[in-house]
């Protein structure tokens, strides 16, 4: 046999780094020595035979490598390798390879592998580097599970406040005040013997009628629970919740080295957004709000680099927007005085759905309890203009479609809003509906819940099981389709000769939002967040469990791709856009993205069948 007869296999191998560095005769020899295997998801793991190590070359399918503790080391797809660490180190196989998707794998035997390493220095270097990198990678995948894998030492405060056992409680209280902490460690002959907290001072000193001269050892908690500094944060949380305590002395070799409080843990988990929202709520002028809001892009970057879930990022960013909006309303009400009637500030579109990302514009409206008289209308005009311009200055630009509370068209009383919705629902004109769809993703950011409910309940009562309206909404949502062509190839958008890439927003997430919206309106579900809508639809058995989970995963995956792409654009100072170039993706990610779009495509066929009764 001559190797050219194995053309498709040779072509594939030749396209892989580092096989592309081999001479054609070496490559032929390599291809001829391969054996081909097929691994099925049903068997869960690739059976790795330690007496017979091989280089595994993934031809199709998806796999993940975990070490013996079950930690994720790597995810693999077409053109990736596994099995090389034991080939290189000669050590026994300790990693396990899980089969995520059925796949075809080429095996290269150790003799040929060694021969290729001798033949090509680049080949040898590549696998040695990959080996070293995989060891490093262990850290990368950890980022997500901060509390379960990070150590106490990373969150505790060092140099703890200490006091001698013979001091009096007044001195202890003074020390705590100076250091602005809520606890002090009590030391007897360099050894930790107790802890004195705010609570002890209250319960054992003040409430008992003792005075400040009481010795510390009579008020402290003796034999406190302690942990060592290399304990897991997770263990600390467990200990605290088991014993109902908020302070843990950290002790190494019998020496107190730090204190960990429940606040430290909270801060470590999601400090930034909470701090930012707290800061927003403390600001008293527009100027200071503007300067605080400059931190928002940084917050987004941090969340992206911490590999947070896209859904969480959307929720966090939206809560910041909500807090900013509320603060602007409150500040302006201080200037304008009490409102003449109850009102709700409505958020539409992405803010309504809680999936805001970088460079969002405003989509909002105002809901008034009843028809305003002239004075009231003047009040609300002034209020909304001030809030909208405040938002604009904080980075949420004016809505190009003028869907804003400052536009009198979208500053309506309850009955006017109800009529407006009724006109969309009862005479669903395609074009009008297309613009109206964002109004159906509405949420109240400010104002009494009862007022908002009386609007939403009325709207949902009209949309529920309203076949004509739902068919109209469905047809609108089918105008765009996922960017997949024949043979599941990506369809790229072009702008003249320049390839813009895949539009992840309009051909991905927007479609899933549309699908979830149609279902939710058909069933009268109050949720507006897409992931929550899908969850409720699944619980109510309106979408079957498998399809719902697939759709939720596709939504998360595409949103995640969009955010990490924007993170990439940001760090490379490129303009932020929704376009992704598929050639920048690894083959595994490309494969997953294709599958996600396939799910969107199937779900579109689903609503088409269900709501328009056509194929």
């Amino acid at each position, binding site marked *: *046999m*001559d190797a050219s*007869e*194995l*053309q*498709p*296999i040779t072509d*594939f191998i030749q396209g892989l780094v580092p096989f592309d560095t081999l001479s054609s005769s070496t490559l032929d020899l390599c*291809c*001829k*020595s*391969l*054996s*081909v*295997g*097929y*691994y*099925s998801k*049903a*068997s*869960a793991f690739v059976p790795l035979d330690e007496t017979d190590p091989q280089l595994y070359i993934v*031809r*199709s*399918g998806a796999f993940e490598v975990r070490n013996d503790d079950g930690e994720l080391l790597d995810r693999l797809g077409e053109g990736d390798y596994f099995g090389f660490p034991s080939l290189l180190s000669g050590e026994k196989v300790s990693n396990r390879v899980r089969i995520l*998707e*059925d*796949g*075809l794998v080429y*095996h290269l035997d150790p003799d040929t592998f060694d021969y290729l390493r001798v033949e090509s220095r680049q080949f040898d270097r590549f696998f040695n580097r990959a080996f070293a990198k995989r060891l490093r990678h262990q850290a990368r995948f950890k980022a997500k599970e901060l509390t379960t894998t990070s150590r106490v030492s990373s969150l505790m405060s060092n140099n703890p406040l200490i006091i001698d056992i013979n001091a009096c409680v007044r001195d202890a209280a003074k020390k705590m005040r100076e250091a602005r902490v809520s606890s002090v460690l009590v030391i007897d002959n360099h050894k930790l013997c107790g802890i004195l907290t705010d609570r002890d001072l209250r319960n054992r000193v003040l409430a008992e009628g003792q005075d400040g001269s009481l010795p510390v050892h009579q008020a402290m908690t003796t034999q406190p629970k302690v942990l060592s500094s290399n304990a897991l944060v997770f263990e600390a949380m467990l200990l605290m919740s088991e014993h109902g305590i908020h302070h843990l002395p950290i002790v190494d070799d019998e020496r107190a080295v730090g204190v960990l409080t429940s606040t430290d843990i909270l801060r470590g988990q999601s400090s930034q957004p909470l701090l930012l929202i707290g800061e927003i709520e403390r600001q008293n002028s527009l100027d200071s709000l503007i300067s605080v809001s400059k931190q928002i892009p940084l917050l987004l970057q941090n969340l992206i680099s911490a590999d947070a879930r896209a859904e969480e990022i959307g929720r966090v960013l939206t809560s910041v927007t909500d807090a900013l909006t509320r603060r602007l309303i409150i500040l302006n009400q201080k200037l304008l005085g009490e409102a003449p009637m109850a009102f709700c500030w409505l958020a539409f579109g992405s803010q309504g759905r809680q999936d805001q990302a970088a460079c969002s514009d405003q989509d909002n409206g105002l809901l008034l309890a009843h028809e305003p008289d002239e004075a009231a209308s003047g009040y609300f005009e002034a209020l909304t203009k001030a809030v909208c311009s405040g938002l604009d200055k904080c980075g949420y630009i004016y809505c190009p479609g003028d869907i804003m509370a400052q536009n009198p068209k979208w500053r309506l009383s309850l009955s006017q809003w109800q009529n407006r919705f009724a006109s969309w629902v009862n005479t669903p004109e395609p074009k009008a509906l297309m613009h109206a769809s964002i109004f159906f993703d509405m949420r109240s950011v400010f104002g009494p819940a009862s007022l908002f409910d009386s609007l939403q309940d009325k709207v949902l009562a009209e949309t529920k099981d309203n076949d004509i309206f739902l068919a109209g909404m469905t047809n609108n949502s089918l105008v765009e389709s996922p960017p997949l062509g024949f*043979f599941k190839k990506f369809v790229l958008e072009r702008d003249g000769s320049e390839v813009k890439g895949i539009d992840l927003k309009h051909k991905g997430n927007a479609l899933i939002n549309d699908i979830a919206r149609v279902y939710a309106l058909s069933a009268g579900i109050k949720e507006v967040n897409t992931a929550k809508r899908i969850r409720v639809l699944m619980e109510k058995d309106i979408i079957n469990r498998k399809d719902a989970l697939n759709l939720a995963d596709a939504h998360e995956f595409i949103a995640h791709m969009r955010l990490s792409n924007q993170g990439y654009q940001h760090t490379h100072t490129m303009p932020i856009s929704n376009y992704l170039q598929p050639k920048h993706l690894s083959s595994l990610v490309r494969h997953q993205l294709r599958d996600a779009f396939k799910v969107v495509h199937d779900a579109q066929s689903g609503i088409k069948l269900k709501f328009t009764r056509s194929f």
Partner: protein
Amino acid sequence: MLSRYLLKSKLCWRAFRAEEQALKTYYHGQQSLLDLDVERVPMLAIDLEMTGLDAQFDQILSIGIVPIEEGRLILSKAEHKLVKIEGSVGQSATIHGILDHHLNRAVSPEEAMSWFLERCQGQMLVAHHSPLDLAFLQKGLSTHFRQGVTLMAIDTLAIEKRRLMRQHEVLKEGALRLGASRARYGLPVYAAHNALIDAIACGELLLAQISAIGQGERVKLTELLA
């Protein structure tokens, strides 16, 4: 159980009738394969290219074989034989890309047949739409040994058809072709075609089918032959 018994007695009869020793060995070998679990069965995925579709008039152009041992295709033992034909390659050249001058290193049909019978000793044959390939091989072997020869093979097309029928799918035209069948298992598209590549493609398809049928459980050889 019953089908295995029937098959065995058929093979026993054929072995008894066979005059040529190589053929006797082949039938006996097939008999002992029937007791094994699928992953233990040594197999040989094959594909033929012919000048046409009629075994009576058309001739074999090339034979590709690749052994499957313990669930792996062994490419180092794969072989591709070109066979000499009478007359010119003619029209089929456009399909197979085999040109007359390729046939210079071709062997005679007689050599090809004894080589093939030697290779399939103790191996279960695998082919996509096996009746066609077997018809040509049986004709060739019968001519060579001057007595009737009946080969046995796993047919990946028949397996695919049964699977689809069981799922109550409407069989579209071309849905059972090798490429279309492979696509359902996410197997790669092989652009080039020759007997060897198609034999490999067919072997890979069988591995995928076995894993889909078994879902992690053991599969009996007779389930594939049914």
